[in-house]
Structure formats: C-alpha cells, structure tokens
C-alpha cells in the first residue's frame, strides 16, 4: 500500500483535496528581495506565553542584566516552552501588556531595554550529531523554546519525541496564504540549514520517507532545496499545485499521500508527522549551534508600505518598529489597520505595541484601495441566498451554509452533528460568499461557546461528585458522633456504678468539694458581699489551704469538680448583682473600643480582664435588651470569675485557659458590636447609661485593680502583644461589619445575636 503511494509521489503525480480557492497571490511584492537584517529596536516586549499551553516560571526579575540567548522562563511541565532574551539588555518591567491575540487582551510580558551591545551568552557548538543521544536532542529542542512556527505554536519537543512508528515525515514549505513569503525566502537562503534540521528530525523519528512539500509558485525555493537534498535518497522535494489552503495539515497530507485524516483523528494516528520549514531551521540552530529561538522571518507587506520586504525580526519586537523600518505611510484621518497574519487567517492587532511572537509570520498593512473591507466599520452582510458556493470550496468537506444557519440559531447540538470542530478556519467559504457573510466569524463564536459549555458540564460533574462526597462524609461523622456519645455515656454509667478506687476517689473528691463549698459559704457570709471580686479574692485565699490535704493524684479532678461547684455558686451570687453589673457593662462598653487601640501595648492584662468582664456583662445586657431569657447570660459572669480562679489555683490547665480567654475575647468583640447596634435602637437605655456612668465611675476601677493583681503571675508565658492586636483587629472588623449591617433588617441582627451567643457559650 505504501509502496504505490511512494511510487506515485516519486512520479510527482499527487492527489487533490476537495474545494479550495485561488485568490490573487500578491507574493511578488516581497518575494524578490532578500531577508533584511534589521537594526536593534530600543525596547523588546516579550510575552511569557507564545505557544499552545501554559507560561513558564519566571527566572529573572526587574533590573536584571540579561545576555542574548539567556533563558527568561523555566519550563516545569511538558506543555510549557521557555522563552529567551533575543538580545542583551536590562529588564525594565514585567507587567501586563497587549499581546498578539484577536481578543486584544493583555498578558504578562517582560520589557527588555536593549543596551545595543548584543552580547551572546556562552554557547557550545555541537560539531558531530552522532555524539548526542535522542534524549539529549529532545532536551536541547525543549530548552531552546522551539514551538511550531507554522502558526499553531505546538511545543516541538513533544511532537519530535513521538514514540509511535512514523511512516512519513512531511516538511511543510507550501505557504499557501497570499502575501506571505517568509517560508519562501528562508528556503531560498537557508536551504542547507533547513536540510540539516530535517536530518536531526530524521535521527529522532526515523521515518520511512521524508517529503518536503513546496507549492509550484516558488521556483527558486524548489531549486534550492532540490540542490540541498540531491544526495539524500530519503528526502524528496514534492512540488504541489498552488491552491489555498494546500498548506493546511490535513489538506497537505491528502495531497501528498491520498490519505484522509478522519474527523477527530490526528496525523500521528496515521503514522505521519508534519513540521514547518522554519521550525526545522530553528531546530538546527538549537541543536548544532546552541542558539535558542530568538528570531524569525517575518513578511512585512502591503501597499501602504514603501519598503515591503521580509525581515529577520527578533521575538518581542513591537509591530510599530517593523512598520517604521519598512516605511509605513500614514493614512490621513484614519487609523491604519494592521493585520497580523495573512489576509485569510490573520487578525487585526489591537495596538501597535503588540510584539512579534514565535507564531507571527506576517504583518500586513493594506492600503484602502487594496483592501477596502479592512477600512470599513460596518459589515456588508446580507441574507444567505443558498447558492452553495461555500460548500463547493470547503477543504474539510463541511456544509458552511448549514453551519451558518445553526450558528446563528445557536443550535449547538446540531453544530456538533455537522462537525463544526473539523473547521480549520481557513476562510475560503467567506471569501466566495456573494452575500459577504463573515462565516468564519460565526464559527469561531460558536466554537468558543461550545467549548465553554463543555467546560461548564465538566464543572457541574465535579461539583456533583463533591456534593455527594460531602453528604457521605457528614453522615459518617454523624454516625461516628452518635456512637462515641453512646460509648461515653455507657462508660460514665459504668464508672459511676462500679466500686473502683477512682470511682470512690471521685466520690470522695465530690464530698470534699461539697465540704469546701459549705466552708466557703460560711466564710463569705462572714466577710460581707460588698464586691463580688473581693469575694473571689477571699475564695482563692480560702481555697488553697483546703486543697492541700487532698490526695496528689486526685487534685486535678478535685480542682475541676471544685471549679464546677464554684461556678454554680457564683451563678447564684451573680444573679443578685445583676443590676450593678449592667452599669459596669455600659461603662466598659462605651470606653472599650476607643481605649483599646491606644492602650494596645500597655496594661494588656487589664484589658484582657476588662474584656472578659465586659464580655460577660455585655452578654447579659444584650440578653436583657433582647428580652429573651437564656441561661447563657448568667453563666457568663461566673465564667469570667471561674477563669480567674483557675489561674490563681495554678493547675496544669493553661491551654483551656487560653482558649477560654480567646473565646471570651471573640465573644466580647461580637457581643460588643451587637450590643452597640442594639443600644443604638434602644434610645432610652442610652440616656440611662449616660446618667449612671457618672455615678459608678469610681466603683468600676477598684475591682479591675484587684483582679489584675491576682492574675499577673499566671500570664507570664503568653505573648500579650499579638492577642491584643488580634482583639483590636477583631473589634475594628466587627465595628465595620456592624456598620455594614446597619442597613439590614433588625430581625436578622436579632437572630444573629441569639445564634452567636449560643455558639460562643
């Protein structure tokens, strides 16, 4: 089968593909002049991504001095290709800039100020290809940043590293698009280098045959390559008839081998690989001369230029520099349209600072006479007359008319059925359409929509899976929690009922605690109930002698139980003191937010204590204003004093203390803010506050001082500053949040208050 194909190829009798058009070539403008070496521009704008895939990681930063050929990004995954400095200079900026993309969007670019020296980095020339292994060569190609230069920008090292059997390697020198002569010139001038590059690919892929396809409108290029390959049996120069789009991958394969690469397939599946001639030249430069991809041939053409020609453009050269060099004539009263690419597949650039990238092969600057449609603002589109010319010229044998109907109706399932994904965007259908319908435009919009819908579908699938997993996890947790509770309850019951030493010890500890409480009650009643903090002080002093005689191993347990008892007791006491506590709360509430930022460094312990008290009292106040009776309120004051008690007893439970404090602080902040909001509403209560503030100012200071003395020693290991800062932060944030929530419904605030209060307890 392959034999007859190759026989036909040797004879020069090729196949043909369906459709195609013959637009005026316009290549004479630039085909006769040699490639010009330009002067260095002042600044280069190098986008980080110039290929299909993702950007590499930056290796340089602003202010770095770079040498010509130095790598600027690092490739960390196979689909990433690095970029290199096209000349020596200093990195002046790394920022977003408009790139060569039809969207006109910006991407991250490196701004390189050229120093004019053009100093190379050190290069190692490889004289003998045989010394390099295939892996070495692939690495060199990857490190040199070579991507497909025919227009797609696919990372070359992936294509060249193909593991499957390659039957035919096709080198694409067809260049079918009008105006462009970049490949033509490079074939004319650098045919030997190109053939050297092909030899490298030959070493990597070992194909059975190598075909170099050139259209018959490039006689000089054909001659040059025929001369370069005359001694190499494997390589054949194939002259194909000129037709647009013969240079398309699938079309060229069909012309040369008669094989159709079916829809959804890749050429590699048919054992064929295709590379552009410029890519081969770059591969040769990279592997033999250690020169990374830093320049390419660009055809700068169009009747609006006085000196249209091909140039060696450094990657990153802004388009306006090229236009200046080729003598662009300013268009009066209008913006000169600048097209990157050819007239069929190119796009208008959004700004003249757009840089040349690895895939830019042409800059087309048409005059008004040459291309009036480029200057027109509105489109001349009229109704489709169903002439059918579009399907006659479609190289992919699609039905552009049907595609147009469905694209306009946004009928995406129908578009998929009509194989919209096989459209190569060549523009032949739009070229022949008598109604001047911009067909390719509709297809591009539809393709983007379909792609997005597919992405959304994938996302929805993922979200569903996560949701199901979460449901499962919550259920499992619930079951585990229930099992644990049951076990704990059973254990507790067993412990209570069994006659073990711990149980008896616990029981005796309980009895001891009860005894202690009774003693305390007697003592406090003797001491008087002028201030609840004094009572606390007396408790702590009374407590320690009683604690001592209890057995060593039971003291933590005993202490814990004693604490619980104390809590209960103080709850009752606090209930009596509530009216006075309200007053204290008001004062501290008003004073706290203003004082806190100022006192951040000093008296941190006092602040903490105050906050705790304030938290408790504020909670109580909030509850009162809310007219909702909840047990949490009464627990809060005893909790504050219980915390103090813990520190004074100096047990080994510092961590819960800290947690308690933090919790109290957060609760303080939240409750404070909430109370503030509520207080704003209850106008008469605020008035009350102002009055009482004056009378009780003195009374507040005394308990604070007493408290501070008791707890100073136990707080030595904590770092006060961050906690105070955090508190300040929290308070500020809460204040902000509350200001925001001012506009919302009052019921919402109320529900939040009750909800959060429950949680913080």
């Amino acid at each position, binding site marked *: 089968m392959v034999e007859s194909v190759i026989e036909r190829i040797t004879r020069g009798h090729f196949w043909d593909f369906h459709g195609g058009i013959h*637009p005026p070539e316009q290549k004479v403008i630039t085909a006769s002049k040699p490639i010009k070496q330009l002067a260095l521009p002042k600044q280069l704008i190098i986008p980080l991504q110039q290929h299909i895939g993702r950007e590499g990681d930056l290796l340089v930063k602003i202010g770095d001095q770079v040498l010509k050929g130095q790598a600027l990004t690092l490739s960390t995954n196979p689909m990433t290709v690095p970029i290199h400095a096209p000349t020596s200079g200093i990195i002046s900026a790394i920022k977003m800039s408009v790139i060569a993309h039809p969207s006109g969007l910006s991407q991250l670019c490196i701004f390189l100020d050229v120093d004019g020296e053009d100093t190379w980095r050190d290069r190692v020339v490889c004289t003998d290809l045989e010394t390099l292994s295939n892996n070495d060569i692939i690495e060199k190609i990857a490190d040199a940043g070579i991507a497909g230069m025919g227009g797609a920008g696919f990372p070359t090292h992936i294509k060249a590293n193909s593991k499957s059997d390659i039957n035919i390697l096709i080198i694409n020198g067809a260049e079918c698009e009008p105006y462009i002569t970049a490949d033509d010139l490079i074939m004319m001038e650098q045919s030997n280098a190109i053939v050297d590059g092909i030899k490298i690919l030959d070493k990597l892929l070992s194909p059975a045959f190598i075909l170099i396809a050139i259209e018959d409108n490039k006689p000089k290029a054909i001659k040059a390559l025929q001369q370069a390959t005359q001694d190499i049996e494997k390589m054949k120069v194939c002259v194909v008839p000129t037709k647009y789009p013969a240079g398309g991958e699938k079309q060229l394969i069909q012309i040369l081998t008669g094989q159709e690469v079916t829809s959804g397939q890749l050429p590699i599946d048919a054992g064929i690989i295709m590379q552009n001639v410029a890519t081969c030249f770059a591969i040769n430069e990279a592997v033999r001369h250690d020169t990374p991809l830093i320049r390419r041939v660009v055809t700068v053409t169009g009747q609006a230029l006085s000196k249209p020609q091909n140039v060696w453009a450094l990657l990153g050269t802004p388009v306006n520099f090229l236009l200046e060099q080729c003598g662009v004539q300013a268009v009066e009263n209008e913006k000169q349209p600048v097209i990157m690419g050819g007239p069929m597949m190119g796009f208008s650039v959004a700004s003249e600072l757009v840089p040349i990238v690895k895939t830019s092969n042409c800059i087309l600057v048409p005059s008004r006479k040459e291309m009036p449609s480029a200057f027109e603002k509105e489109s001349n589109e009229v109704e489709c007359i169903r002439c059918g010319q579009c399907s006659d010229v479609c190289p992919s044998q699609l039905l552009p008319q049907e595609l147009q109907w469905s694209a306009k109706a946004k009928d995406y399932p129908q578009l998929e059925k009509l194989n919209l994904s096989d459209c190569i965007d060549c523009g032949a259908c739009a*070229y022949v359409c008598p109604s001047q319908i911009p067909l390719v435009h509709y297809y591009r919009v539809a393709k983007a929509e379909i792609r997005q819908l597919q992405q959304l579908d994938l996302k929805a699938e993922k979200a569903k899976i996560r949701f199901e997993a979460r449901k499962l996890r919550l259920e499992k947790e619930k079951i585990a929690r229930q099992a644990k509770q049951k076990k704990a309850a059973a254990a507790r019951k067993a412990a209570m009922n069994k006659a073990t030493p711990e149980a008896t010890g616990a029981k005796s500890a309980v009895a001891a605690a009860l005894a202690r409480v009774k003693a305390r009650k007697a003592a406090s009643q003797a001491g008087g109930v002028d201030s609840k903090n004094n009572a606390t002080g007396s408790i702590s002093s009374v407590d320690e002698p009683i604690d001592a005689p209890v057995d060593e191993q039971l003291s933590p347990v005993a202490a814990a139980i004693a604490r619980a008892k104390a809590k209960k007791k103080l709850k009752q006491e606090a209930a009596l003191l509530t009216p006075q506590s309200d007053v204290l709360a008001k004062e501290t509430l008003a004073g706290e937010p203003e004082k806190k930022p100022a006192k951040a460094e000093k008296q941190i312990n006092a602040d903490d204590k105050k906050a705790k008290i304030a938290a408790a009292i504020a909670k109580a106040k909030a509850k009162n204003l809310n007219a909702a009776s909840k047990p949490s309120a009464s627990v809060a004051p005893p909790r504050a004093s219980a915390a103090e008690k813990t520190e004074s007893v100096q047990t080994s439970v510092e961590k819960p203390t800290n947690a308690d404090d933090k919790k109290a602080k957060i609760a303080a902040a939240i409750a404070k803010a909430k109370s503030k909001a509520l207080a704003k509403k209850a106008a008469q209560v605020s008035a009350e506050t102002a009055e009482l503030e004056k009378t009780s100012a003195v009374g507040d200071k005394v308990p604070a001082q007493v408290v501070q003395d008791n707890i100073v020693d136990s707080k030595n290991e904590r770092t006060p500053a961050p906690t105070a800062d955090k508190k300040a932060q929290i308070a500020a944030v809460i204040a902000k949040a509350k200001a925001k929530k001012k506009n919302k419904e009052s019921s919402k605030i109320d529900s939040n208050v009750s909800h959060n209060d429950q949680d913080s307890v």
Partner: protein
Amino acid sequence: MNILLAILVLGSLAAVFGALLGFASVRFKVDADPIVEQLDAILPQTQCGQCGYPGCKPYAQAVADGEAINKCAPGGEDTIKKIADLMGVEVLPIDESHVQGDAPKSNRPKVAFVIEEDCIGCTKCIQACPVDAIIGAAKQMHTIIIDECTGCDLCVAPCPVDCIEMRELPDTIHNWQWDLTSIPVKQLD
C-alpha cells in the same frame, strides 16, 4: 332481540379486549423512571437550594413528579429550555421569586471571595458550602478554591463579619469568547 345481541357482541368484544389489555399491562410493566437521571444531568449541580429543594437531585425528582420547571436560578434560560424539551412541556420564564440576591442578571459567572483581612476563622462558611470549596479550620484563615466554587451564594449569609463577596471571574485568553462585533473577516479583491 337485536338490541340484546348488539349489547352482547359489544360487551364480549370489550371483555376480550379488556382482558388483553390487562395481560399486556402486567407484561409491559415499567418500574424505574430514568427521567430523573436525565433531568439531573441537565441541572447545573450548584446545589444552592434556590429552587426550594435541598440540592439538584431532589429538584429533578420533583420536576419528574410535575413541579414547575422554571425554579432553577443558576441554570437560567438554557436549563429551562432543555428541561422543557425533555419533559415535553412549555418553556416558562424564570421564576423571579427564586433568584436570590439583588445582583443584575449578567452572563459573567461569579465566584466567592474571602476578604482575608476580615476573616476571623469561625468556619461558618465552610459548613455552609455544599461542595466543600472552602479551605480552612477553626481560627485559621479561610480561602475559597476558585476552581470548585459553583457561585451558589450560600456562604455569603452565614459569615458573621460579612467578609465574603461574589466577584466575577476575569477574562483571560483561555476563557475569552469571540465577539461578533469585533473583527470582520478580511477579503481580497
């Protein structure tokens, strides 16, 4: 006599056919209803609950049982049209009462974003997220995983310090849509 015969004939005919149908109904009994799966596949899986059901599957079940098809806010017009096609019912305009929030109906997708300076680490948003798209733990910073966020809005309300807001995803060249009004195809003359 003729009347009696007529009645007899019709009656027996009816009886025979009735028996046949009865047998057929048993033989061709349909048990499961795969329509719920198909409906669920159309819904956007944000699990936001704006339709009034706790998730997309329950709403799919409800629609199969006859619920109105225009309750899915994140799905939008597209989803309603697809459900209408599948169920063979009329396309209804979206039910405005089920659209949460006061944001204008724009086509740009939104994801949640935590303003990290304000976050206090309360984990309330983590518990609210139906697809576990928030990383964090108690008293640790909370962050939204943008790739997993479905934009359902459920985390915004529970935050006690109001530090979550919905932001549009930025345009990048990877998600850029061609615009019909931008570049016409150039033609040679």
